[in-house]
């Protein structure tokens, strides 16, 4: 048994071989329907607010000493545009020399952009769209640092299995996103042979004629017993009233209660407090780091790390390193991360958090995988197929 004497990494700094430009872009919608706060007339922030550019900038400052050492002059191009202007804005950035573009956009827009930019050298990084169908499109120029729906619900299922929760009542909203999330959960339930006792749709109205859908007691009663309620509610307006009102006294998970997330401000391990406090000191108004911010931060760090460590200076070398297992990226979640070669998804630990505490970090102890335990979350290579 000999330790592997790995071949020398060609990481030796070749002196600052003249300052080269590295252009990174960040692109989002000026009015993103996903961040519309109108539903929240109670002035409670239901959906995340804040600009991921703060997180991209934090990554640039975190890595400045590295990029300086490599003689790289990092330039950030930033645009916040309407849906109709997206194409033009992205094309302009690419024409300007942007090689890596961080996207805070809904899945449909990313799908469209990836196709439109297929003949350009740019690599797109999806930081906030969880849709599995976007992964199945297998755009060769697209990587994902947002967790997919399936990864997130698999994390919840691991928690359920570890706590001996065997049956669920599924509640879903009427939006397309809620349907995707709930469907992913039902699939994940089946993989572990757990049970869904009923799958119901809720309605936000107070219309008495729809009380079967809008009265929480009725919505959660009249079923066989269940161990927990899973709710898919992207907006969150309905979900926040469900705990403590269910017909049976059972925990609520999914969109409220225990929520699977890429990141949480209350995470205390693996250097997370330092990341959170750096973000709070750099963000607008000292806001806390949300999961979207973590995804944008890690996307930018992945690109900069690849520039620092790639064996060679060409864009091909950098992108080859970015997509290789050697990336071994640290996202302050205690695991070395890399992109899955079969769908460009960043494999990562998922936090299971309440509003103010991180209860668990999936993959939980005991959930193994034949290659990498992070791949116990989401579609594995064997069950994944491009459309």
């Amino acid at each position: 048994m000999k330790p592997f004497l790995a071949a020398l990494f060609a990481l030796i700094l070749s002196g600052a071989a003249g300052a080269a430009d590295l252009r990174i872009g960040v692109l989002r919608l000026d009015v993103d329907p996903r961040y519309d706060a109108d539903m929240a007339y109670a002035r409670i922030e239901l959906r995340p607010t804040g600009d991921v550019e703060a997180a991209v900038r934090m990554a640039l400052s975190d890595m400045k000493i590295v990029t300086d050492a490599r003689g790289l002059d990092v330039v950030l191009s930033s645009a916040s545009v309407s849906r109709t202007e997206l194409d033009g804005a992205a094309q302009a950035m690419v024409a300007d020399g942007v090689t890596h573009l961080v996207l805070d956009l809904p899945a449909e827009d990313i799908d469209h952009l990836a196709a439109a930019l297929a003949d350009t050298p740019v690599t797109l990084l999806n930081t906030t769209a969880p849709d599995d169908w976007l992964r199945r499109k297998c755009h060769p120029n697209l990587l994902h640092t947002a967790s997919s729906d399936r990864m997130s619900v698999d994390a919840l299922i691991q928690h359920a299995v570890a706590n001996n929760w065997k049956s669920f009542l599924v509640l879903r909203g009427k939006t397309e996103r809620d349907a995707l999330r709930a469907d992913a959960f039902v699939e994940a339930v089946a993989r572990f042979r757990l049970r869904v006792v009923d799958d119901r749709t809720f309605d936000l109205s107070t219309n008495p004629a729809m009380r079967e859908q809008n009265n929480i007691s009725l919505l959660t009663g009249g079923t066989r017993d269940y161990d927990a309620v899973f709710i898919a509610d992207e907006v969150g307006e309905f979900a926040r009233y469900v705990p403590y009102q269910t017909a049976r006294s059972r925990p609520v998970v999914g969109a409220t209660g225990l929520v699977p997330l890429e990141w949480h401000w209350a995470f205390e391990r693996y250097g997370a407090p330092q990341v959170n406090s750096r973000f709070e000191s750099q963000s607008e108004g000292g806001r806390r780091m949300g999961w979207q911010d973590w995804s944008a931060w890690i996307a930018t760090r992945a690109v900069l790390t690849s520039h620092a460590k790639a064996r060679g200076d060409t864009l091909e070398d950098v992108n080859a390193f970015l997509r290789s297992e050697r990336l071994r990226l640290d996202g302050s979640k205690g695991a070395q991360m890399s992109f899955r070669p079969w769908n460009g998804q960043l494999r990562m630990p998922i936090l299971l958090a309440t509003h103010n505490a991180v209860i668990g970090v999936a993959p939980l102890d005991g959930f193994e995988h034949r290659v990498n335990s992070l791949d116990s979350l989401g579609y594995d290579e064997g069950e994944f197929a491009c459309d």
Partner: protein
Amino acid sequence: MMRTLLASLALCLMPAIAPALETGRIFVSNEKSHDIHVFDSDFNLIKKIETSRRPRDMKLNAARTLLYVACGDDDIIDVIDVETLEVVDGIPTGPSPEVFDFSPDEKQIYVSNEEDSMLEVIDLDARITIHDVPTGAEPEGVIVVPDTNTLYVTSEVSDMVHVIDRVEGVVTNNIIVGTRPRRFVITPDTDELWVSAELSSEIYIIDRTSEEIKEVLEFLPPGFRPEDVTPVGMTLTRDGKIGLISLGRANHVAIIDAHSKELLEYVLVGRRAWSVALSRDEKIAVVANGLSDDITLIDMETYRPIRSIPVGRVPHTVVIDD
């Protein structure tokens, strides 16, 4: 002074405790129980010293009379009298001190300050920060090379080793290493600097003269996945022949031939093996296990674990006074 004398008198009256110097005592800092467990050379617990909050890295002064302890949540380095086992002093630092080292004349202390991304230089007499050297984000490991002006610091986020001229107070070179570089050792001939890269499961061997990476070591104890191997703590025997490397979540310590880098043995210890230290006679190695709240003793003749002993919550560093 009087108190010190009385306390040492009291200690002398107790049986089984060796004379003040080279007590053979083992100190273990516990981050979450805010204390230091002190064992005698037979590994009997003789005292729990309450410290400031979150004690982590510890170092003895050259005379081995004082033990310095960086306490991350109170922004202070506590100073403990090794004879009386009392906290006798404190050196204020910037936010969240983690790892530190002394200048060879012990007039200055170099502290990595993970909140502010700085290496702080503190004058021990004046008790003031005389200089800050900006580093990459989350600096951690700090080591001063004896008889030189060179100092090394790791940055966990930028995956770098900073080479610092401690007299000029400037970074003279940056060496890019593996993911989340943590700690250092320097070989006794001072030719090699070893760096543990926790999240890429590697030990980087850097040639100190050329400041280039000579070799990258990887370890894989049987039954573990490469990603379980998260090396942090390292130590070398005084003759520079044997190296010990803690493998973190792989729950083993690798013992290697420090020259050929050949593996001699994987020793099973507790959960998340962290700091590792050798007794002066180098017959026993002590490993702090961060996730099982204990220390494991390794017999250095047979390379077998002898036993594990419970300590406080989240043991961080082991220092042996002998």
